[in-house]
């Protein structure tokens, strides 16, 4: 993929250090990365590779120690591994929360929430509370809430890692449909290489301790891609191979 005129995200020589003195940990080491508008970027790496740190920097929750982070799409929406639904609110109210926070008028709130619940197939569960939903339904509600922020940039930190394989596969389809329909830019962090190849326009491999960009692949297979297809499997194997090499090199 060619880089658009103004990238959605640009990280230039970004380093992040946690702690000071002898306890200092270098989480990210001179990471440079550009994400184009409308791109679906997947970031893979073993644990401790600073994937979550990278997302926090892009989300503006943390500042880089060195380097520059530019985000050209306004405040991004974030999704975590846990759905983080508020247990005292119904599904409807949880999805409505970002709209309430920006004081959207009642009519708009109603229309938007209804549309989003339809999008993630949860309209029938609008009045349920989170503890009455299954894991996949909770994560769909969290997705609807993220969409309610009406951000152009969606940052996802292993959002489907805690789900079973069947549910995860369905949510991949949901997510891709939503991404295409809303022309979103997505940065999707995962440790699941197959997931990355199934979803992404591009897959970036981060090394561990410190996190560096080791390699990047452009995924040119047409969508919809199946997890079982030989092309996906071949590419996933290649990335996994490279991932293992990195782990062995850093582990010593």
């Amino acid at each position: 993929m060619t880089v658009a005129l103004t990238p959605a995200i640009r990280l230039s020589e970004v380093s992040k250090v946690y702690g000071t003195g002898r306890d200092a940990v270098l989480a990210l080491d001179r990471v440079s990365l550009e994400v184009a508008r409308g791109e679906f970027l997947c970031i893979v790496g073993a644990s401790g590779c600073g994937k979550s740190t990278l997302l926090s920097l892009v989300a503006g929750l943390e500042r880089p120690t060195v380097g520059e982070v530019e985000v050209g799409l306004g405040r991004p929406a974030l999704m975590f591994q846990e759905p983080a639904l508020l247990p005292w609110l119904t599904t409807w109210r949880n999805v409505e929360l970002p709209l309430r926070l920006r004081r959207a008028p009642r009519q708009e709130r109603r229309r938007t929430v209804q549309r989003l619940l339809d999008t993630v197939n949860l309209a029938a569960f609008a009045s349920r509370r989170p503890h009455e939903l299954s894991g996949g339904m909770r994560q769909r509600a969290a997705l609807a809430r993220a969409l309610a922020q009406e951000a152009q940039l969606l940052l996802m930190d292993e959002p489907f890692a805690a789900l079973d394989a069947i549910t995860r596969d369905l949510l991949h389809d949901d997510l891709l449909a939503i991404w295409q329909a809303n022309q979103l830019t997505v940065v999707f962090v995962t440790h699941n290489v197959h997931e990355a190849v199934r979803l992404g326009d591009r897959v970036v491999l981060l090394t561990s301790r410190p996190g560096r960009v080791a390699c990047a692949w452009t995924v040119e297979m047409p969508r919809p891609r199946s997890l079982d297809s030989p092309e996906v499997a071949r590419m996933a194997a290649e990335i996994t191979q490279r991932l293992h090499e990195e782990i062995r090199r850093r582990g010593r």
Partner: protein
Amino acid sequence: MAGEPAGRVRPVTLAELEEDLDALQAIPTTSERAWRRLIRAVVPRVSAVLALVLLWQLLAVLHVKPSYALPAPGDVWASLVQQAREGHLSEAILNSLRRALVGYAIALVVGTLLGMAVARLRVLRAGVGSLLAALLSLPSVTWVPIGILWFGLTDATITFVVVLGAFPSIARGVIGAVDQIDPVVLRLARSLGARGPALYWHFLLPAALPGYLSGMQQAWSFSWRSLMAAELIAISPQLGLGLGQLLDSGRELADMPLALAAMIGILAVGLVIDEAIFRPLERMVLRRRGLLAR
């Protein structure tokens, strides 16, 4: 989709698949019938009281103690009825309830403000936090002499003792509730950009509600106990009759049935407030959040 022929060609849509999977995975919600719930709530409580009364009757019949020291349940009941008929009982209950509620309301305001200040300001944490723990274990009876010296034998003394007995529970409840807010909630609030009043209204206050409620519940029982301590000691004609004073007049007159009747009144009021107000509130909050097994 069971009714369709085996060789169907129409592919299953994503929405249909998800719907079926949801139906399989949805956690069923059970709702018990109201009368069954009522029976299950009432029967064990009534049986426990009956068993106690039976045991008491048995001890009375066996003359474990002389009857002026351990009157039979019937005698106490008669005394209770007599007090009720003469209007002393309702007067005592109303006076005591009023005093307890006034003290409780003040303790609620003081405790909530103090608790929030301690929870928010790190400087206050170590010092005031441990002071509150010490206050919590200080029997509120110990405030009675000071109260009498400062305010004389007035309602203000009683209110003073109740407030000092109850506010540490409220403050500790607030501090604990704020400390135990799920970090996930805080992270969500941050990522949604919630600040100021919106942060409190949509995130912090509801997240702290269960801990706050249990602090309120504990504070109620503390204020009721403190009230009785105060009423037993602070006795004067200007003060008006409370349940504690009723109990003390039983002691003074060596009227054991009256003393026990007053005790039953004290027990009953404390229990009714707890069961009628605090428990249902707590259950409602916990049930909504899926934190209650039944």
